[in-house]
């Protein structure tokens, strides 16, 4: 049981990072990014490939963050000038392009078979109980660092201007500041969080393949963010926790209702998550955190 809990919390910790990245982009700057998984994938593959070539794991992870950010820069510069609904579509297409390229470039990524034997940091290569706990601690440490970083940014003059941009972009322009620069910076930053989450995922599961990086990851992160409340750091954390609890709980549906075949189970879980999202948007439109705070 405790092995199971450690695994669930590690996965949650990784989702917290993804959700924080999206919260920066959408909740903070109003950017609609439907391609968040692209940077999760880039982070995972960069760190995996480098470490499989003998680069120390922590260095690979740092490189993954930097490369995810560098990938976001040109995409952001192009897409953020588009109308916001076009940004969403452009990012969806970008994420699919990344996933298909990962499947196609066999020489580098192992194609659809993916990459195996990705080393763990600290205790490699053996994966024991102590190792999993250490890794969980490492993931949580990254979460804490991310939260502190976001606090610093949101409460700075930079954060103040980003909030101004979200309220009225034309007024910001009329007062002599270019909204595009700020939006691109937030986009790159959020993507860097995605890259870090990807690197942590790759070294945790030690096996990655393109089918782990489909658009459904992006939408799970959106769901987590909306569940918790898009405008709050605590919302991202609570939302990721709720989503994971929900996904894990629905895993046991098959014990209660044995007539659903395992292959149908995935669809049933997705439907259950969708239902929960509808219920939440009806009863907690600003997220459960805001609802709780107002009580």
């Amino acid at each position, binding site marked *: 049981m405790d092995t199971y809990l450690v695994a669930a919390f590690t996965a949650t910790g990784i989702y917290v990072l993804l959700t924080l990245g999206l919260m920066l982009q959408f909740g903070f700057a109003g950017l609609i990014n439907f391609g968040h998984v692209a940077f999760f994938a880039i982070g995972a593959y960069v760190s995996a490939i480098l470490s499989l070539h003998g680069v120390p794991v922590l260095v690979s992870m740092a490189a993954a963050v930097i490369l995810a950010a560098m990938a976001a820069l040109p995409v952001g510069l192009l897409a953020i000038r588009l109308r916001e609904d076009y940004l969403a579509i452009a990012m969806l297409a970008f994420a699919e392009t990344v996933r298909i390229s990962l499947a196609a470039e066999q020489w580098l990524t192992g194609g659809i078979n993916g990459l195996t034997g990705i080393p763990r940091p600290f205790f490699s290569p053996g994966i024991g109980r102590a190792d999993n706990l250490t890794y969980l601690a490492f993931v949580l440490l990254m979460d804490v660092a991310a939260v502190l970083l976001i606090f*610093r*940014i949101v409460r*700075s*003059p*930079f954060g*103040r*201007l980003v*909030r*101004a941009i*979200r*309220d*009225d972009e*034309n*007024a*910001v*322009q*009329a*007062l*002599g*500041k*270019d909204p595009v620069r*700020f939006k691109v*910076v937030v986009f790159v*930053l959020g993507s860097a969080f995605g890259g870090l989450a990807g690197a942590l995922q790759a070294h945790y599961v030690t096996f990655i393949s393109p089918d782990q990086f489909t658009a459904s990851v992006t939408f799970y992160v959106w769901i987590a963010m909306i569940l918790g409340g898009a405008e709050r750091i605590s919302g991202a954390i609570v939302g990721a926790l709720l989503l994971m609890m929900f996904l894990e709980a629905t895993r046991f549906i098959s014990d209660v209702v044995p007539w659903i075949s395992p292959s149908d189970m995935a669809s049933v879980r997705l439907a259950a998550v969708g239902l929960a999202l509808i219920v939440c948007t009806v009863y907690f439109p600003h997220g459960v955190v805001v609802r709780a705070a107002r009580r």
Partner: protein
Amino acid sequence: MSLVVDGVSKAFGGLQVLDAVSFSAPTHERTGIVGPNGAGKSTLFACISGFIRLDRGAVHFESHDLTQATPVSAARWGLVRTFQVPRPYRHMTVRDNLLAAAPSQSGERLRNLFLAPRQVRREEAAIRQRAEEVLGFLRLQSLANQQASELSGGQLKLLELGRVLMTKPKLIMLDEPFAGVHPVLIEQLCTHMTSLNEQGIGCVVIEHNLGALAELVSRLIVLDRGKIIADGSPSAVLSDPNVGAAYVGRPQ
């Protein structure tokens, strides 16, 4: 030092909204632009401030060519505008609205937040000091911690003026500052604009409220159907029969 508008024309589809409009507004003067609805006043502002590309003509401010400039560079050169419908940062306090408008803050670069935190703190303190001065000047201190969304229409106009002042402008362009504003606040706004003008900040005002505008400005330009039909001192312009005709309607 002046704003020079030279033969500016703009058409939307088949509609000629501005037809070779030329005037120059020195910064030591207070210039009013009036005209009936649809005369092209707001379009003229949008063309000058870079929000709309003009078809023909040129706009210069001091040594800068504004003809192809973006709103961002126009504002950086000291030509700052407000909007007909106020555009406050609704979810921010009045004070934060002002703080966000302070120009070129080093704390707006992430690099400086982490590499030069002391410089950021020092600058922030100076900006806060300046915001308090502006709040005092506009008598907005009591509203400093209110959300902008809670202000009245007149208070929003004062807030917009405050934000403009934070940018240290050379010429302020106000689009209908008196519309929907309480007469007491109109008087206040006029006092503020006059004292700013005496400090050397120019102002160009679009307005429907002729009475209040004639009190404020030293020169009136009348636009009708995209053309300037009168330009001179308020008393001369208001007694011009053409101007009355444009407002009241022409005899058939």
